[in-house]
């Protein structure tokens, strides 16, 4: 795609598409981020109280450990996905 970046108008088009794709990935990730912490960990905990985990319930696990594990997954997913997106749109640093 290097020939596209040499033309400013097309480059701007590419950048717009790239940014829109990035924002979509961010939104999906943030929904998951909020769901496991504020959702499962706090607000939805009563709904999950039937599922027991090691002497307590799933909500407690999400609040104290589960959410942290999901956060880790999210960041690595985002880094991997974005580095691929950079190449797809030819906007990486190489």
């Amino acid at each position, binding site marked *: 795609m290097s020939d596209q*970046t040499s033309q400013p108008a097309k480059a*701007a088009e590419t*950048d717009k598409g*790239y*940014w829109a794709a*990035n924002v979509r990935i*961010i939104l999906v*990730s*943030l929904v998951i*981020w909020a769901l496991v*912490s*504020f959702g499962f*960990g*706090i*607000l939805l*905990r009563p709904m999950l109280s039937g599922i027991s*985990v*090691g*002497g*307590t*319930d799933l909500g*407690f*696990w999400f*609040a*104290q*450990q589960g*959410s*942290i*594990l999901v*956060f*880790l997954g*999210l*960041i*690595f997913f*985002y*880094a991997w996905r*974005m*580095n691929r997106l*950079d190449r797809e749109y*030819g*906007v*990486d*640093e190489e």
Partner: protein
Amino acid sequence: MDQYTLNLLFVGATFALYIGIAVWARAGSTSEFYAAGRGVHPVTNGMATAADWMSAASFISMAGLIAFTGYDNSSFLMGWTGGYVLLALLLAPYLRKFGKFTVPEFIGDRFYSPTARMVAVLCLIVASVTYVIGQMTGVGVAFSRFLEVDNSTGLFIGAAVVFAYAVFGGMKGVTYTQVAQYCVLITAYTIPAIFISLQLTGNPIPGLGLFSEYSPGGEASGLYLLEKLDLVVADLGFASYTEHHANTLNMVLFTLSLMIGTAGLPHVIIRFFTVPKVADARWSAGWALVFIALLYLTAPAVGAMARMNIIDTIYNNGVSEEPIEYAARPDWMKNWEVTGLLKFEDKNGDGRIQFYNDKSEAFAAQAAERGWAGSELSVNRDILVLANPEIARLPGWVIALVAAGGLAAALSTAAGLLLAISSSVSHDLFKGQLTPNISEKGELMTARVSMAVAIAVATYLGLNPPGFAAQTVALAFGLAAASIFPALMMGIFSTRINNKGAVAGMTVGLLVTLVYIFLHKGWFFIPGTNTFTDADPLLLSIKSTSFGAVGAMLNFATAYFVSHATEDTPDEIKELVESVRVPRGAGAAAADH
């Protein structure tokens, strides 16, 4: 060898290591002082960020706060890790692409306004100094214990050490030193936790032990650790460990404040300026969280197990029997009595240590029946992690290791914060605004003087801290959340927010949050000058530690309305924002303006 010598030996050896590294990697130029020449690998950077990040609050204070409250303090765990998601997705790659040295520099350029830059410097200083107060509290606790002096003396010694240490190097010295500090602190945190988890549950991984069967000394009890703990605390009138008692609105806002604050703290953000590429900035945030998670997945286990062990020590024949006699108390209690952070008062004069919830009305009748006249032991929550290996009767070297680890945590963060404060003052305030022609030497000098002033203020306020280490630190997060994060995020995700909007937003966010905190914690944290308390807060059930999220919303709203009521941003700023959004062409940083 006695414990005192052993402590000195461990703490001395680790300090010699850090100082050795700092001298070896001593900063030569201003560029090295601030950003280590951008030659730091993502894994190394992640580890240094983790050390920078995990302070006295995470190491010394957090598990203690969880231990005494249980589920309700899960906010610390979710908040201080969830912020990395925001950092990785919303800020880190773009700030790296922007390619400058400090947070106020980005704000000044993006909002094409020296005023915006100055307001950002102010926000940064207020949040960072508050944060350093929390660190000094933790440093005081750690030094007072291992030097066996009272808390204030410990604080003064700690302040001197932090100062000597922080002025030594800049970012480069700090980066490699912090890698060493991370190794010390994570070993110090996990080793006692593994021992204790083995003792109580037979599971060598504390994070799994927390959800395993309670089997002290290998004897199965037929109950999970958390079930047993709930039963035991209930027998002493305490609220259950695993249930939700806290106000839900406050808990949500508190968690959110900590998350947003994490992504708004300058000493963490500054880390992402030091990686070679935009792609590396994304990975760096992930690696940082990996190293942080090693401690954060262990912390809830440390909390629950320490609570169990304390009650077990005091009620060595079970909670339905009488507690131990004061004369027969274990050594760790004697040791901590010296610091003044653990106190015993024989209220019913029977020579035994009654420890229960004397605030519970439901339990009052039962307590009276047992001849108890109030809880006789007061334990400062900040001592719990440091006392933990002693409570579990672990070998002396483990206790010494924990002392060294606690100091590593407090020192690394204090150094990182002081670096962020000093670079803002010297680089943004003096070089950028007041004296643009300042020499490199003069800039470094200003940086060091501002560090000294920041430590002096933090030490003075640390003598009467507004809360336990982690609570003071939480206030700092609220301030960062309300002021810096929204400005950075809007600067990247909107081309419409203009100079006036950003300045108005930051000012409103910072001032409203600061006033709310001062109303509850005392003006300038001076005790007794508060109008409200966190037990009965001004607004709904929102405590001062949770207000940062509200401040952030006010910041966003103000910036939005002011920007839309005033002129559009200039075209070159729109181009700047669009270029920041795309990794292509991210070169090395430039310090010029």
